[in-house]
């Protein structure tokens, strides 16, 4: 339990806020359960990468942002995109390749993007969005908007060149960006120790002259607090921060990966530290009634169910749409 973030007694406002974090994590969880289920039914094409178990990083970090801030993430991006406020139905619609989907069905599960809420894109080339995150942050500095950009990526992404180029440039130009590394212990099927000579990825920040902090990524309040501090630093013109959020991918890398390579007992250990479970306990200990905790879950379940029904009824794009959106003007 994170003592720093446990108030003695919650005000009504605080209680609502804490329940909202729980509801948001449930929403992502239910959304992804449906993605997994419908993948098996053939509604989801290609592949899909679930962030089950990592919801506290998405929700905690995105709730440390304010309007006008923006975010980029990876192909494992359902959580972050929904946490920014992308509508559930249009997100489902995109995953199912429907015309009213976020990207008109041209992106899919790996590319959920909703500019209306500052979700600037989910990227499926490992590390490729870190340079782009710098660009979004650069615009804020160039125009003096005060906006900050949050960039999510995995532990494995810290071994690709774009990571190093981006942290270096962000630091030398003091760009208002927060790099959130979700260390879920694996890059695809490879445990981190087999690919990476250091254990604490936050240490990589030192090479770029920026603060690096390792946090418990399964505690939503700890994530929110750490990201909020980094955001404040960025807004004040003091430059980027690297946050390493320790978490766990409860499912395989993608829907076709049974994750047989995990040591016995590892999953069970992390299930006992499930972020939704932990925050529920925190709420109970802070004196929130079980009925309210259950209501947050029920609200998320209902919203996801309704959105799913709408999205499944939506049409596929017209074939002619394939020629649109290559050029702004032709």
């Amino acid at each position: 339990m994170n003592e720093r973030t446990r108030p003695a007694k919650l005000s009504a406002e605080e209680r609502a806020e804490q329940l909202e974090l729980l509801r948001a994590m449930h929403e992502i969880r239910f959304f992804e359960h449906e993605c997994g289920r419908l993948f098996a039914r053939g509604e989801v094409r290609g592949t899909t990468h679930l962030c089950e178990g990592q919801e506290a990083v998405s929700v905690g970090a995105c709730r440390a942002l304010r309007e006008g801030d923006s975010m980029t993430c990876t192909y494992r991006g359902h959580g972050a995109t929904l946490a920014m406020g992308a509508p559930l139905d249009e997100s489902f619609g995109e995953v199912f390749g429907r015309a009213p989907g976020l990207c008109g069905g041209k992106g899919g599960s790996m590319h959920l993007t909703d500019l209306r809420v500052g979700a600037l894109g989910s990227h499926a080339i490992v590390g490729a969005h870190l340079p782009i995150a710098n660009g979004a942050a650069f615009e804020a500095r160039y125009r003096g908007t005060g906006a900050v950009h949050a960039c999510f990526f995995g532990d494995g992404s810290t071994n690709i060149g774009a990571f190093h180029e981006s942290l270096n440039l962000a630091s030398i130009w003091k760009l208002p960006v927060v790099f959130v590394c979700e260390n879920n212990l694996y890059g695809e099927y490879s445990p981190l120790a087999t690919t990476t000579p250091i254990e604490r990825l936050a240490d990589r920040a030192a090479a770029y002259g920026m603060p690096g902090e390792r946090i418990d990524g399964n505690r939503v309040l700890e994530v929110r607090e750490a990201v909020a501090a980094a955001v404040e630093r960025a807004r004040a013109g003091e430059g980027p921060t690297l946050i390493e959020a320790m978490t766990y991918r409860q499912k395989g890398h993608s829907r076709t990966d049974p994750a047989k390579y995990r040591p016995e007992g590892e999953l069970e250990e992390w299930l006992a530290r499930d972020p939704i479970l932990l925050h529920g306990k925190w709420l109970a200990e802070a004196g929130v009634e079980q009925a309210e905790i259950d209501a947050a879950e029920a609200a998320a379940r209902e919203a996801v169910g309704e959105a799913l029904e709408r999205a499944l009824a939506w049409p596929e794009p017209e074939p002619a749409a394939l020629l649109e959106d290559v050029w702004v003007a032709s």
Partner: protein
Amino acid sequence: MTETTYKGAINKAIVDALAADDDVFFLGEDVGAAGGAFKTSVGIQERFGERRVLDTPISEQAIVGLAIGAAMKGLRPLAEIMFADFVGVAFDQIANQLAKYRYMTGGQVKLPVTIHLASGGGAGFGAQHSQAAENWLLNIPGLKLAVPGTPADAYGLMRAAVEDDDPVLFFEHKGLFNVKEDLPEEPARVELGRAEVVREGDAVTVVATQLMRHRALEAADALAGKGIAVELIDPRTLVPFDFATIATSVDRTNHLVVVQEAPAGGSWGATLISRIAAERFEMLDAPPALVVPPDTPVPYAGALEAAWLPDAEKIAAAVEASLAY
């Protein structure tokens, strides 16, 4: 009118683009304080300051990626990659991010990014600093490619590129920096996708860009002495490509010779010939010819590089062979 070099025209275009719009900024390695590796940006940072003209670390992915992110938020970045050969280092950003972003987000973003690269051989820079790399980018829907061959086109295409709402890669040719031309105080924009008929003629259509355009013009002069009237066309942009102007010309001359500074495989010249053959087979009196360097990297030694690059004699010989068919 002021006599202006190709290099000077590029400098002026960058200055005018920065002066015209505060959303335009310019970044790259040594573009600021040092004035550019080829001195194309001398004096620009002095005039516009470090906020708008930024020296970067040697990080091509970070340069292009920053341009993409900033463009997504409404700025108009002009990013420099010093030598076009280095595009390989930033290839993912260009091929997978810049070109595809708009499409895969269903048109949510527009990316008015211009990338400025120094391209081409003839100056003894060796294999890793001499390639006319524009063909590498040809097979990626979503990128516009400008290949100016004159000071007027360098100015006009740079201005058009920066003002265009889609990504444009602007290749300047290192062999043309000192080519001169009289330009007005305010030279015209050159529309992307509009070829120039450099010289009119009725015997054969020759298509060439950049350094090859100048060599083809030499060949056309020599052939004029023999009574052969070459029609020389410079497409000026490879994407969009002004096929109509070339096709109309071929319909009249019934002969096509394409000259390019790159091996044939997967190139714009080969693509042009295949399309002419497919769509206007019956208009041709001879097989279309492609004058190209051999399938080797660009060599260093003067004698070897000279033998590698197509010259006026090879071009003239290809024209005569086509007419003699």
